[in-house]
């Protein structure tokens, strides 16, 4: 079962054959080494067991740094500006949360901040913190905890849902005033794309194999 493809797959701490249990059906099976771009599927339920993504660390670092830049833009620039006569309103995520806080719904304000600022930041920042030093075979202190946080934050990062919410809100506003789409909105779209690509760039098992090696080396 074990295939050796030197230079094409990441190193592992044990050189013998590795067994994995499918996280979906728990079938225990051998885990062969894969060529870049290949995926191993569960022999019982067909779930993807793990993948060898091409240039995974480079992709993860690249896309997550880009995502951080987009994130700064999202929070600095308004996504939408509405002009109606003398009144002018701008929208950034933080302002949306502030308005909810003022107008009697602090729970929703906190949820908005958590889903669209905290969770995406933990996700992207955590991924960058772990993968950037891993490119040089180094694990920064706390890398295990950070990896855990970023994996946990994944389902709670809802920027794409928020982006869709903006579109619906615009349609609901209808003909009220002049509406301009701002830099924040495009940055948000960029952020969603970069975040998705950053997570998709690296396999979970590969990341942990690499972390294990890096920790072995530093200790």
């Amino acid at each position, binding site marked *: 079962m074990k295939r050796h493809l030197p230079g094409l797959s990441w190193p592992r701490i044990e050189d013998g054959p590795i*067994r*994995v*249990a499918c*996280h*979906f*059906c*728990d*079938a*225990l*099976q051998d885990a062969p080494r894969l060529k870049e771009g290949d995926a191993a599927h569960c*022999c*019982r*339920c*067909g*779930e993807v067991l*793990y993948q060898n993504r091409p240039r995974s660390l480079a992709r993860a670092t690249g896309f997550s740094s880009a995502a951080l830049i987009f994130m700064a833009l999202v929070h600095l620039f308004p996504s*939408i500006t*509405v002009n*109606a*006569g003398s*009144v002018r*309103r701008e*929208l950034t995520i933080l*302002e*949306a*949360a*502030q*308005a*909810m806080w003022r*107008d*009697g719904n602090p*729970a*929703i*304000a906190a*949820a*908005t901040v958590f*889903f*669209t600022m905290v969770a995406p930041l933990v996700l992207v920042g955590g991924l960058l913190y772990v993968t950037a030093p891993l490119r040089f075979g180094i694990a920064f202190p706390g890398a*295990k905890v950070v*990896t*855990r946080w970023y*994996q946990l934050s994944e*389902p709670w990062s*809802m920027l794409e*849902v*928020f982006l*869709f*919410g*903006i579109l*619906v*809100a615009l*349609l*609901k*506003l*209808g003909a*009220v005033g002049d509406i301009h789409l701002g830099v924040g909105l495009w940055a948000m779209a960029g952020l969603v794309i970069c975040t998705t690509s950053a997570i998709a760039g690296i396999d*979970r*098992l590969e990341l*942990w194999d690499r972390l*294990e090696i890096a920790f072995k080396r530093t200790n």
Partner: protein
Amino acid sequence: MEIRSAAEQGLASCHLCGKVSPVDLGECPRCGCKLHLRKPHSLERTWSFLIAAIAFYFPANLMPIMSVGGLGGTSHDTIMSGVLNFWKKGDLLVAIIIFAASILIPILKMLALVWLCLAASGKTRTSPKNLARLYHVTELVGRWSMVDVFVVAILVSLVQVGALSSVLPGPAIVSFAAVVVLTMFAAMSFDPRLLWDQHADRDLPDTP
């Protein structure tokens, strides 16, 4: 080749890093996570989150999600009346999307989870492959129900313009957010491996 589950051999794959180690170790040697053969109290936890979500679903749909104050007085919108307004205005696509995200998906997600729970405790007979597909879909679409909550948050901050002097969040919005969060927790605490355990117990041929 006979397929055996890791649990039968006393092996647990770590929830966090996926490494397979003997469950007797207690902790994953690689990442330090607690090892379990299955997520602890998976069904009980899923049921409780699910029942809480179903309870919140009623106020979420019956009470107004936002109040719009304009020149012609204040109007209260429920989720369904928002959908109907779009429909009447002729925005059929938007109406359908909102209806799907805010009404259909939460209901279907809760029904799917009930079904999965029943199947995992051996009450129904469905092939685990189909149930697996169902589980994947529920995990994937669950977050999108949050869209209405965000829409209200955006409108509240955006609208103090022109004819609409005020938009205020209604009492339903907290319930609605609770439904989404609770169903997400329910899906996370569900352990799909239980479906296959049931399957294996019945001694059916498990070829893909």
